[in-house]
C-alpha cells in the first residue's frame, strides 16, 4: 500500500503540481520568478558554496537524464570496467562537490545577519530536501555501487512506466531504503518547484546564446498606424 502511495500516487501528484503550478507562476506571477540571488549582500563565501553546488547539480542532473533517456548507451559504455569506474568516480565527485557546496551555503546563510533578512521558510524546506537528496544519492553511490549500470536496468523501466501511464512498482519496492528515499525526495523536489526558488532553473537563459545582443521593443508599430492598413472594423490589430 505504502509503495503505491510513494511510487505511484506521489509521482503523479508531484508532476501535476509541478506542471500546473509552474505554468501558473510563470504566466500570472512573473514578478515572483527569480533566482533571488544574494550575492549583492554577501559575495565571498557565495563563490565557494554556489559554484561547486551548482556545477555538481548541473552535471548530476544531466547524468541522470542520460541514464533515463538512453540507458542502453550507458550500459554499453560501462561494458569496460575501467570506463565504469571513471563514470562512477566522476559522478561521486560531483555529488561530493554538491554536498560541500550546499553545506557551505547553509553555513553562510546561518551566520550572516544580512542573509537572514532575505531568508524565508520555503528556503529552509529547500535546504532540507536538497540535503536529503544529495546525501541519499551519495549513500546509494557508495553502498550500492555501480548504480550507473543497475539504474539503467531497474529504475529506467520504472520511470518510463510512470511516464507511459502504466506504473510498475515491483522493481522499486525491492530496492534498498536509501534508493527509495532518493526517489521519494526527488519527486518531492519536483512537487515544490513552483513554490520555491527552484523555479529559477526552469528559466535558465539558454536562449541568450542565439539571441542578438541588442533588443529594441516598439510598443506599437508606427508604420502601421500611419498607413492605416490594419484598421478593419471589429478586428484587433496585433502590434505588440
Amino acid at each position, binding site marked *: 500500500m505504502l509503495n503505491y502511495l510513494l511510487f505511484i500516487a506521489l509521482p503523479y501528484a508531484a508532476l501535476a503540481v509541478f506542471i500546473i503550478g509552474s505554468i501558473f507562476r510563470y504566466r500570472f506571477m512573473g514578478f515572483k520568478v527569480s533566482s533571488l540571488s544574494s550575492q549583492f549582500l554577501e559575495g565571498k563565501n557565495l563563490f565557494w558554496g554556489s559554484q561547486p553546488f551548482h556545477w555538481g547539480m548541473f552535471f548530476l542532473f544531466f547524468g541522470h537524464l542520460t541514464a533515463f533517456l538512453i540507458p542502453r548507451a550507458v550500459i554499453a559504455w560501462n561494458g569496460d570496467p575501467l570506463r565504469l569506474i571513471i563514470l562512477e568516480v566522476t559522478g561521486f565527485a560531483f555529488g561530493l562537490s554538491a554536498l560541500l557546496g550546499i553545506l557551505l551555503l547553509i553555513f553562510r546563510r546561518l551566520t550572516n545577519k544580512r542573509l537572514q533578512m532575505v531568508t524565508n521558510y520555503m528556503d529552509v524546506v529547500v535546504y532540507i530536501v536538497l540535503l536529503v537528496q544529495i546525501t541519499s544519492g551519495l549513500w546509494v553511490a557508495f553502498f550500492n555501487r555501480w548504480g550507473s549500470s543497475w539504474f539503467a536496468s531497474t529504475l529506467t523501466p520504472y520511470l518510463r512506466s510512470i511516464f507511459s501511464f502504466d506504473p510498475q512498482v515491483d522493481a522499486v519496492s525491492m530496492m534498498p531504503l536509501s534508493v527509495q528515499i532518493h526517489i521519494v525526495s526527488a519527486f518531492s523536489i519536483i512537487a515544490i518547484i513552483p513554490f520555491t*526558488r527552484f523555479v529559477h532553473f526552469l528559466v535558465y537563459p539558454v536562449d541568450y546564446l542565439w539571441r542578438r*545582443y541588442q533588443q529594441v*521593443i516598439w510598443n506599437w508599430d508606427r508604420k502601421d498606424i500611419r498607413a492605416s492598413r490594419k484598421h478593419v472594423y471589429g478586428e484587433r490589430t496585433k502590434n505588440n
Partner: protein
Amino acid sequence: MDIRSQVSMVFHLDKCIGCHTCSIACKNIWTDRKGAEYMWWNNVETKPGTGYPTKWEDQEIYKGGWEKNGDSVSLKGAGKLKGLKNIFHNPNMPSLEDYYEPWAYRYTDLFEAPEGDDQPIGRAVSLITGEPIEIQAGPNWDDDLSGTPDYARQDVNFKHLSKAEQESMFQLERMTFHYLPRICNHCLNPACVGSCPSGALYKRGEDGVVLINQERCRAWRMCVTACPYKKSYYNWNTGKSEKCVLCYPRLESGQAPACMHSCVGRIRYLGVMLYDADRIEAVASCDEAELIDRQMEIYLDPFDPAVIKAAKENGISDSTIVAAQNSPVYKFVKKWRIALPLHPEFRTIPNLFYVLPLLPAMASVSEDGVYDSLSENLLSGVEKLRVPIRYLSSLFAAGNDNKIIEVFKRLHAVRVSRRDTTVKDVTETQLNKVMSEANMDIHEANEIFRLTSLATFEERFVVPAAHREEAIEMLENTGDVKGNTGFGFKMKPERGL
C-alpha cells in the same frame, strides 16, 4: 538609413551647485522602498573623487562596457559565454560595500528616553538588518573634496595624469573641483541590454528609453556588471534589477523627468535627437581617437529634408520631428559643439552630454598672485589652466585633449562677448581674436548665452508627444477594460518564495 528618435539630455556643469535636489526628487519618487534604499538612480559626485559606487570608472575592477573587437565590439565582463559561465557567481559585480550600507536613525529614542543627566542619542540602524551600525560611508561622502586622501586622491582618472599634475590639483592656490551629476545615459549601444541573459532589458523603440521588464528579470545580475556607469542596480529584496527609467510616465504625459524638473541650478536640458541606427555598430567600434567625432555624426540634422523624409518613412510622427528641431540638446551638442559625452571610451554611445565646466579652468593665478579671469590668452598656454586639461579629457574625451580645448575656446568666447556687452571693458582686438579662434559670431554667442542663462522651462525641456493614447487603443479595446486600474503591471512588488 534607419532613423530613430532618442530622448537625450544635456547637463551644464558650470551651473551645477551640488545641492543634490535632483537626487532627492528621484529618491522620493522611485527608490524610497525596501531593497532600493541604497540606490541613487540620480547621484551627484564631486570631481576629483571616487564617486558612487566607489571607483565606478575603473573597468579593471568592474569590467563594464564594451571592448573593440575588430569591426565590432564585445562586452568586457559579460556576454554569452562569459555571462552563462559566471551565472552562479559573478566575480565582477559590485557588492553592498562598494555602494554603502543604508541607514536610518532611531528618532523615537530621542523622545522616549527617560529623564536623566545625559543627552539621549538616536543611533544609526541599518536599513537592511535593522541593527545598530557604525556608519562607514555614504553615497556622497566625497562632497566638495571632503576626506580628500580617501576620495579625491583616489580618483580613477588620475592614472592619466603625471604625479606633478596630480599634486598641482591639491595645492591651495590651484585646487579646483566641479560637480558631476549622473543618471543613466540611455545609451544607443547599451551594455546593460546586451548583457542580460533573460532578455529583460530593452530599449524602447519610440523614444530610446532603456528599461528592465520586471516580470522577466531573473536576478542574473549581469547588467550591474556590464553597465560601465553602474546605473543598473540590484534590488536585494525583490530579487530584481532596477534602473533609471527617465521618468517615462512623466515623459509620456509631456512633463520633464523629476530630477530635471526640480534642478535648482537649471543645468538640465532634455530633447529629441534623430539618429541613424544602422551606424551604431560602426561608431561603437571605431578607433578611440575618433569616438567623439563619429558619435556626433550619428545624430542627424532634423532640418535636412532628406532626413525628415526618411524619418517619416520610418514612422516617426510629425510632432517628434518638430521636437527634434526645437531640441536644446541638438543645439548644445551638434550646432554649438560645446557638450561632450562622459567616458566615451566605454563605447556604449551615451545620450547624456555635459557642457564642460569652464570655471575650474579659468581663474588661474598669475605670477604676481592675481586671479586672471579674463584674458584673450586664457587658452593660449594649456599649462596655464587651473585644472590640468588631461583630467577633463580623461573624463569627457577618451584622452583627446584637443576636444576639450575646442569646447573651452567656444565657452570662453561666449563669456568674453558677454563681458563686452555688459561690462564693456574688452577691446575690439581682444574680442575679435577670441571670437575668431572659437570660430563663432556674436549672434551665436548670444544664442548660447540665452539658452544657458535665460531659457524658460519650455525651452529647456522639449518633450515630444508620446501618442500613448493611440498606443493604448491599438493594444487594447479600451471599452473592454473600462473601470480597470491601468493597462500595465498590476501586482504588488512582493518578493517571491
